[in-house]
């Protein structure tokens, strides 16, 4: 339970968005309270991280949330709960109530540190054209800010997350950088597979909408520690941030190959690092405090408090209710939970857009056996991608995507190497030296591509609340309506064609298969496609220039409540083709700056009032 009667700022959520806010505000001597729904010792002891690691080792099914135990008082979705939906009967197997017709395939984590505990750490910037989707291609909406507006904040986000990349590799499709800019660390070495593909695909061109595109393999910027670039920050260099509580660990990625669901040494960024870097004299973090309502003064529109439920133990549904009060408020509870909280409180929703425009990157996986050994199951999940078709005129007609080249064989689509062992032992009756050799041979040839396909903002793709569906503490469960539109399916079709062209070019044997029994399955022009979730919840409280069609203004502040900021991927009007967290982190730095500007403006106002009184 919180300690002070009044804070300068009350933040809901201790993930990356909340942590960046807490860090930025506390270093400007603002008294901050962070309310975190999940479990976790606010002092972030290293041992408690090891407990997650042990949980992962012992988990029979190593899904992203495997290390982070289910907590009935702050429930979280699991990919194991997804299934095909037969409307009007919703899928209520897990935390979500999925009304479909299509299945939303992603999870998130409700524990101190949030979902970056199990993110992969891909940190691409959006393309300049992504900010202008509507004016360029007549699709979706434009952002109220441009790439160039966000550029300085991208740099702050890249410092905070600790991004490893080479600027030379990243200048494609209009992406540009400040003069002389370098990333904090050099690029993470590309995998042997990446280099093999670079060479083999160098002369391949593919077509989309009658236009030719190269298939260029490019290193991916990543939030994991590589070799510091001495040229960083005008020659000041960069010191990699190691594990919280054990800074000697994790200074470099060691190739543990388990970034999702947990990096054993914290070479990969997680939000603990930002929480630990906040000014402890000004930040109070309280865990096991689930925000349940935002209180508002009806006449002024000012937010007056956050009501929350504190529980002592995950083993019991007993709780006590409290109200935390501050001058200003920030909701940073994740795109779904932010929207839920606003809907439950009936605030910030003059536009009726809260909860709407929910997006993800439906991921089309394709997998094949290469004619050569390329050494999978070594290194970070992905070190390169194929960004050549992230932008282009075709976006007028169908979704763009980026291709992720995966380093872990068929792990995601088939559960290899477990599934390969089963197949050889049970299916083919192999044993002994023959089994050992055969397993090596098939795994060594495994390659898997992932196409992260763009979705457009759609008001009917949304999260809502329904008093019929509550969790153990009496908070709402998210009710999800989700449709994959033809625009996105057109992206699937184009992706599969390009995948076919790539595998043909490599003389690879394609093993991709999609089944209507898969949780996420759509049929488009007679072909079936199965997609997975990417964990990229975007769009539930979008920014815009018009209070009638957006929830926050370009400064990330609620149109309706002058002392309320929203942060997180919910603010993003479109999802484009980049994993969203770097952009969201940049927006959060921007929001922190603006909130501090509000505070300064208030001080000036107060000062003016004082001097008026004195006169």
């Amino acid at each position: 339970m919180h300690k002070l009667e009044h804070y300068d700022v009350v933040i809901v959520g201790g993930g990356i968005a909340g942590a960046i806010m807490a860090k930025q505000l506390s270093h400007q001597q603002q008294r901050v309270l962070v309310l975190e729904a999940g479990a976790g010792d606010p002092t972030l002891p290293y041992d408690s991280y090891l407990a997650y690691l042990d949980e992962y080792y012992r988990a029979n099914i190593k899904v992203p949330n495997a290390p982070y135990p289910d907590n009935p008082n702050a429930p979280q979705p699991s990919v194991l709960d997804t299934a095909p939906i037969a409307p009007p009967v919703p899928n209520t197997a897990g935390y979500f109530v999925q009304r479909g017709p299509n299945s939303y395939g992603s999870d998130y984590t409700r524990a101190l540190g949030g979902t970056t505990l199990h993110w992969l750490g891909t940190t691409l910037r959006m393309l300049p054209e992504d900010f202008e989707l509507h004016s360029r291609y007549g699709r979706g909406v434009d952002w109220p800010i441009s790439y160039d507006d966000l550029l300085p904040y991208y740099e702050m986000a890249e410092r905070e997350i600790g991004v490893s990349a080479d600027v030379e590799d990243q200048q494609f499709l209009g992406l540009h950088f400040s003069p002389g800019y370098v990333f904090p660390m050099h690029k993470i070495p590309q995998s042997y597979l990446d280099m093999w593909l670079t060479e083999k695909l160098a002369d391949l061109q593919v077509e989309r909408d009658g236009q030719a595109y190269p298939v260029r393999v490019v290193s991916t910027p990543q939030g994991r520690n590589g070799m510091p670039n001495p040229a960083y920050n005008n020659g000041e260099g960069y010191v990699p941030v190691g594990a919280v509580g054990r800074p000697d660990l994790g200074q470099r990625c060691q190739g543990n190959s388990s970034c999702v669901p947990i990096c054993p040494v914290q070479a990969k960024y997680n939000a603990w690092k930002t929480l630990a870097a906040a000014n402890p004299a000004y930040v109070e973090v309280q865990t096991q405090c689930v925000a349940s309502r935002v209180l508002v003064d009806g006449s002024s529109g000012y937010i007056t408090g956050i009501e929350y439920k504190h529980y002592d133990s995950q083993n019991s549904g007993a709780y006590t209710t409290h109200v935390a009060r501050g001058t200003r408020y920030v909701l940073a509870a994740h795109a779904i939970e932010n929207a839920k909280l606003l809907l439950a409180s009936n605030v910030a929703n003059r536009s009726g857009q809260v909860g709407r425009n929910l997006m993800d990157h439906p991921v089309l996986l394709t997998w094949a056996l290469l004619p050569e050994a390329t050494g999978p199951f070594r290194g970070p999940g992905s070190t390169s991608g194929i960004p050549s078709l992230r932008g282009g005129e075709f976006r007028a007609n169908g979704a763009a995507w980026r291709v992720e080249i995966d380093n872990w064989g068929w792990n995601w689509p088939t559960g290899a190497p477990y599934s390969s062992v089963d197949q050889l032992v049970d299916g083919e009756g192999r044993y002994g030296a023959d089994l050992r050799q055969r397993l090596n041979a098939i795994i060594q040839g495994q390659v898997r591509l992932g196409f992260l396909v763009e979705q457009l903002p759609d008001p009917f793709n949304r999260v809502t609340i329904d008093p019929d569906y509550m969790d153990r503490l009496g908070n709402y469960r998210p009710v999800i309506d989700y449709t994959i539109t033809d625009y996105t399916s057109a992206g699937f079709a184009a992706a599969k064609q390009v995948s076919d062209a790539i595998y043909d070019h490599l003389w690879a044997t394609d093993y991709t298969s999609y089944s209507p029994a898969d949780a996420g399955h759509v049929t488009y022009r007679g072909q079936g496609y199965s997609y997975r979730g990417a964990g990229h919840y975007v769009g539930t409280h979008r920014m815009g220039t018009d209070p009638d069609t957006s929830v926050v203004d370009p400064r990330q502040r609620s149109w309706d409540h002058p002392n309320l900021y929203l942060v997180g991927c919910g603010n993003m009007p479109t999802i484009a083709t980049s994993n969203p967290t770097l952009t969201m982190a940049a927006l959060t730095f921007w929001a922190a700056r603006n909130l501090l500007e509000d505070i300064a403006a208030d001080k000036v106002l107060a000062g003016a009032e004082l001097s008026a009184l004195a006169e």
Partner: protein
Amino acid sequence: MPAPTAFMAFSSALTGFSLVELFGTGVADTYYDALVHILSQATVDELLAAYEPGGEAGLPRLLAHPLYGPLARNVIKLWYTGSWEQLPPAVVLRLPVAPVDNVPRVISAETYLEGLMWKAIGAHPMGGKPLGYGVWAEAPAGHTH
């Protein structure tokens, strides 16, 4: 309980890993104990007795047996993955296996990290025994270009 010689010989023949490699995992005893716990001492003894006379040469026959076959395959998977896989119903009907013992699970964090499949595929267990910074950029072991 120390894993008896017969169990180790049986395991070596099934997995294609030498006795030295199997002992090197440090979890041989853990597996033997797990088997005895799940299947009973009598069943494990019976299985080993079925193997011994024929030895390695008799394995194809043993693996085709309706009872010993599935048990032997579970021994392979135990070594390869560090996990117990659920036995098929037809096998369970014939054995005094408690349902709680027959649930699929990782035996321990250690057995996960010692799964032989990681070694067989020229990698390391996901989340453990990392190869070091940048090693993923090198050609896979035994690779000739």
